[in-house]
């Protein structure tokens, strides 16, 4: 009886949790080698060769990884600093609600908001105009759809930093970092030592997996770069969807090639993070 229930549970798990992913992957592989799709006519590796030769995938990958990496590092640092500086203040009744508010802002809204603030005819450009810094809208610096992806990173940092603040605050309390700090100080450690040897290691080791997860999430994010990105290079999801939805039907398979590579990368990352997580949970 008990076993049967567990088996039904497992069957459902496979059906909902595993089958869609596997089907999507198999379909993408088939499409990428010309075995699926109305305009394709049989097995070929030319799409793989085309993607490889164009170099666009690698550019896009590097670009996405760079953006995601910088955003995560900046967000984690900022969040860490805020947490350590204001851990007491942020627990006040009113503030403790305010810091949850950013969770209500999705990527779409953050991107829209960035456009409103930083576009050449946006709010800051208007201020600059009235302060006499610029005489025309086009003199305002490029902050969205710009070559350095400043707009994308700004939006990411805006979304992710509040999350990490909450996370670090939570770990700080749960892991009793305050007590440990006191203990270390009473044993003669100075402030710097406490920070680098006690506080940071505890907070980071507990949150390492989540930081990794956020890197992967940002790497594959879609709405924000769709609104704030430029035409080339593009972030991975935007590139994949553009290739899959393009005018030239004969090249759709190239989009699936990129999708397959991206999926493999994400799966490998899952394996890595998963084993990482095991070691942290074992330790903690």
């Amino acid at each position, binding site marked *: 009886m008990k076993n049967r229930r567990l088996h039904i*549970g497992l069957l459902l798990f496979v059906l909902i949790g595993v089958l869609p992913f596997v089907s999507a992957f198999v379909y993408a592989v088939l499409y990428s080698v010309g075995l699926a799709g109305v305009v394709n006519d049989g097995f070929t590796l030319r799409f793989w060769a085309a993607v490889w030769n164009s170099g666009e995938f690698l550019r896009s990958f590097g670009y996405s990884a760079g953006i995601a990496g910088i955003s995560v590092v900046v967000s984690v640092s900022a969040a860490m600093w805020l947490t350590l500086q204001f851990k007491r203040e942020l627990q006040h009744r009113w503030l403790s609600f305010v810091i949850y508010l950013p969770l209500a802002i999705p990527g779409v*809204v953050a991107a829209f908001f960035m456009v409103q603030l930083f576009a050449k005819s946006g*709010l800051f*450009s208007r201020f600059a105009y009235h302060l006499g810094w610029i005489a025309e809208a086009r003199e305002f610096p490029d902050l969205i759809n710009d070559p350095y992806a400043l707009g994308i990173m700004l939006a990411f940092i805006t979304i992710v930093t509040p999350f990490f603040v909450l996370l670090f605050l*939570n770990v700080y309390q749960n892991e009793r970092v305050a007590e440990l700090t006191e203990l270390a100080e009473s044993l003669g450690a100075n402030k710097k030592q406490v920070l680098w040897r006690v506080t940071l290691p505890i907070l980071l080791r507990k949150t390492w997996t989540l930081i990794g997860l956020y890197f992967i999430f940002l790497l594959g994010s*879609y709405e924000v770069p769709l609104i704030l990105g430029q035409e080339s290079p593009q972030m991975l*999801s935007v590139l*994949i969807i553009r290739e899959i939805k393009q005018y030239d039907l004969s090249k759709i398979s190239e989009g699936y090639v990129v999708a397959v590579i991206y999926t493999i990368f*994400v*799966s490998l990352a899952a394996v890595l993070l998963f084993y990482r997580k095991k070691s942290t949970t074992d330790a903690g």
Partner: protein
Amino acid sequence: MRVNWKPFVLTLVVLLTLFPFVYLVLLSLASQWRFPALLPGYFGLDNWRTIWASEVGLVSSFLLSTLISLSVATVSTLSGFLISRSVAYHPRKRLLTLFTYFPYLLAPVVLAACLSYFFLKLGLFGNVTGVIVAQFMITFPYSLIFFSSFWSERTKSFEELVFTLGGTRRQAFVKVLLPLARGMLLICFFQTFLISWFEYGLTSIIGVGKVQTLTIKVFLFIKEANFYYGALSCCLLIFPPVVLLYLNKKYVFNKLV
């Protein structure tokens, strides 16, 4: 004597946090706001009044989004809770959980693009059911991972205690497991609701523009360069979660790590 900078920085942080909310509300009340004017040409309730005009379709989008997100959150929370038990008590627990991480980490929009063939085949393309099923596929792994920590040795021993004392499976579930998991169920519901409420890419692909949730509307207005309606739909998008946050913030983060 050193000036204490902390209050200033803290005030700044609070202002920055509140700024988007205030600004979006103001923008939703404005129109005819051209560069380089600092103040809009019109400021008032006009945009909000047009919400009720059926052609803009914001009310129906709001209801649709609510329906989709509530269904997705309910189904994924409950199924995740129940099915995670089978996974957690399985000898190969870690391997099974690993499989859950694959769809969890993949960008939903890419998953949707690769799955659209199957959705077409099953008649789940371009309708609300399809969007719910598709969103469920990304919230389910979340909820599964979320509950995996619940089924600990401690929980198991509670269950066994009930059986030892002659309790039935149903009693164990209703009297012990559900109360134990109450907080987690709430958080999971809230989080999966948010994932669904905010979802754009996957919805746009599986819904083919026919299922017009609020996020789809925001994009539509951005494309049309209609920023005032854009701000309006952003307001509709962010304030319900704010209310939900207020209602159960004490639960939201307790169990995240």
